[in-house]
């Protein structure tokens, strides 16, 4: 965690910036708004749910609450790996729901100034970038800022909840 300090000092705690939690997936850096993060948990036994999309790994017991776990690698169509005890689950709040995200590793807490953040790239029809709100450059590394609600909110959890 030596890089933490240098990164933080580079980003600074500017008043106009937001704090983000960054994590890695297949050597790529991603970030989510830290205010949406409830806690970070080690990987534990996940119970698969039948007939659900691949990226819904299943459900986990979070102190008595049954929480669905989204596999972000599968969500992004990346190569899936067998997660072991080194994998990390980021528990986030999406609306009134609590959802866990499996990621490779959690790296840092960073402050981004609005000036650091560029528009998301247009990669053509083949790549869905709708849940990327922006890209930030930190120490020559590219960090993609994710919109949690678009990522796991709307169509997967909330909208599929029966209206009745």
């Amino acid at each position: 965690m030596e890089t933490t300090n240098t990164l933080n000092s580079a980003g600074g705690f500017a008043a106009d910036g937001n704090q983000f939690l960054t994590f890695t997936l297949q050597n790529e850096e991603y970030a989510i708004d830290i205010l949406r993060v409830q806690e970070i948990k080690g990987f534990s036994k996940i119970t698969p749910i039948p007939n659900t999309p691949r990226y819904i790994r299943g459900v986990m017991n979070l102190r008595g609450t049954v929480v669905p776990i989204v596999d972000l690698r599968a969500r992004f169509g990346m190569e899936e790996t067998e997660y072991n005890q080194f994998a990390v689950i980021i528990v986030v709040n999406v609306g009134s729901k609590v959802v866990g995200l499996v990621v490779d590793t959690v790296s840092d807490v960073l402050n981004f100034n609005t000036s650091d953040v560029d528009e998301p790239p247009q990669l053509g029809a083949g790549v869905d970038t709708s849940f990327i709100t922006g890209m930030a450059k930190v120490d020559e590394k590219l960090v993609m800022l994710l919109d949690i609600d678009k990522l796991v909110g709307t169509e997967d959890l909330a909208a599929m909840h029966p209206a009745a």
Partner: protein
Amino acid sequence: MQIDLSEFHSVFFDEAAEHLATMEEGLLGLESTPDNRDLLNSIFRCAHSIKGNSSMFGFNDISSFTHGMESLLDRLRDGTLLPTSERVELLLRATDTLGGLLRAARGEGTTPESMGSLLQELQLALDDSASATSPAPTDAAVEELPVTDEAPAAVAESALPSASAEAGDASLAAVTASLDRETKCSETRSSESKGRDSKGGTESRALHTEASSIRVSVEKVDELINLVGELAIAQAMVNQALSELPADTAPLLYEAMVSMERSTRDLQERVMAVRMIPVGTVFRRFPRLIRDVAASLGKRVNVEIIGEETELDKQVIERLSDPLTHLVRNAVDHGLESPEERERLGKPAEGCVRLSAFHEGGNVIIDVEEDGRGLDLEKIRRKAISLGLISGQENLNDEQIRSLIFLPGFSTAAAVSDISGRGVGMDVVKRNIEALNGSVSIESELGRGTRFRIKLPLTMAILDGLSVSVHEEIYILPLLAVVESFRPQPGDVRTVLGTGEVVVVRGENVPLVRLYAVFGVPPQITDPSLGLIVIVEHQGQKYGLLVDELLGQLQVVMKSLEANYRKVDGISGATILGDGRVALIVDIPGLIRLVERTVVIPPSRHSEDVFFDACAALV
């Protein structure tokens, strides 16, 4: 000293609603037993309480309206007027308006327009009494009666222009004073009325002892239930951990665990019991509903209510109200014949609708039955064919034909009335009850009547389950649906049409459902003779589920998947096992629907769910 009265408002409204319900119930009772003094007294007390409390809170509309009702009730009570059906009817309409006034005061809706006209009618009804008592009534004398009666209420109202504590006390004093006045008045009356009032006195004392109960918000009770659920899970986890230690490590620890386990179980039971409320709370609205529906259809109905003290989870009762209302309306509208037709058939002109509730095993059974025309199976079958719900080729037994009325879009009523028969409903009734982990069945005899039987679990929070394993996964089957389990002989499982499979159980062909295939988990045991078959029953139809192993019977705390995720086909919820992992609870009706959508089942074994899905596909 200023007191914010608004925080007492909700208590007032709750109490007023209860009083209103008691009044309505009493008035309905009065229709059949007009000389029941106790009923009159209790109705009067309710009106009086609403009047007193509403004037204390400054709801002048309500207090003056209730005052009008109270005046008439007082005349009925002291015997000056007889509770004729017209007067009871008037008072019933007045309770409706009073309900509207209470809603308006709560900020839901506007003051009912009927208020003014009803007050006048109540006044007129009083005038009858004046004419009855004095041979030559003058207008002045008629006017006088209400004025004298108005006095205490006027004092009460004038005493509370501002919501101050003193004003509250003053109005309370005024109400008490008026109560005293009434008691004194009645004491001077005949000996009969003395006896009556002394009875009234003991009852009001009984009311005081009721104050030993407290009003608690449902949220608080729910929090408690959640916490106790957590405790039960934690306790199971400790137990599990302990069982992994050598048996003789710490005998004291084991002893402590046993007593803790007992206490936890007791605690859980007691806390669940707090949520239990008598089913009468939902039943009590039906006499009125039946009366109104019957009146609008020109039918005569006698309502019987049995077992209203049977207790059920509050959550279940709340969600039972809609389906029950539907069944009751249907019973009166479709079930019962007109009085003329009944007489022609040699039945009593007055039909009977009976609502009963009782315990059976770990379940509560609620019956809605009438002695009407019964279900005409042939008519239902023809109708289902004409609607394209069935082809007419199926070999359906009577029970399966009766279940056809639960299909969406099915309605046998020739004319669509505003009460029932819009073709929506029975399918919703069935779905609502299944959502409560219950089931509904029909018994009917042509010309003799129909009985809808609803079978419900005592509570939705805890489920008696059978845990089974499929490879690494553990599933909980609701014990209610499980019939038996066994290991089949190699020859017992046969394929039908190459794809469907049946298992032969004592000569009966039961469709085989490979649970691993339906739930898409990697199989460990694919040969049925190496695994186990659990026979489950849904709507009189049996299915054999192939699982690896039976793990045991257990009580599980139901957790919703919808809270954080969404509804999953074939799964009704989840629970947390002793080792902390999540196990899914299988929803048998949902599983069957899932199976029939994907697997071919021999034609003769079709249940109505196939039609259900077929017509869903057509839409």
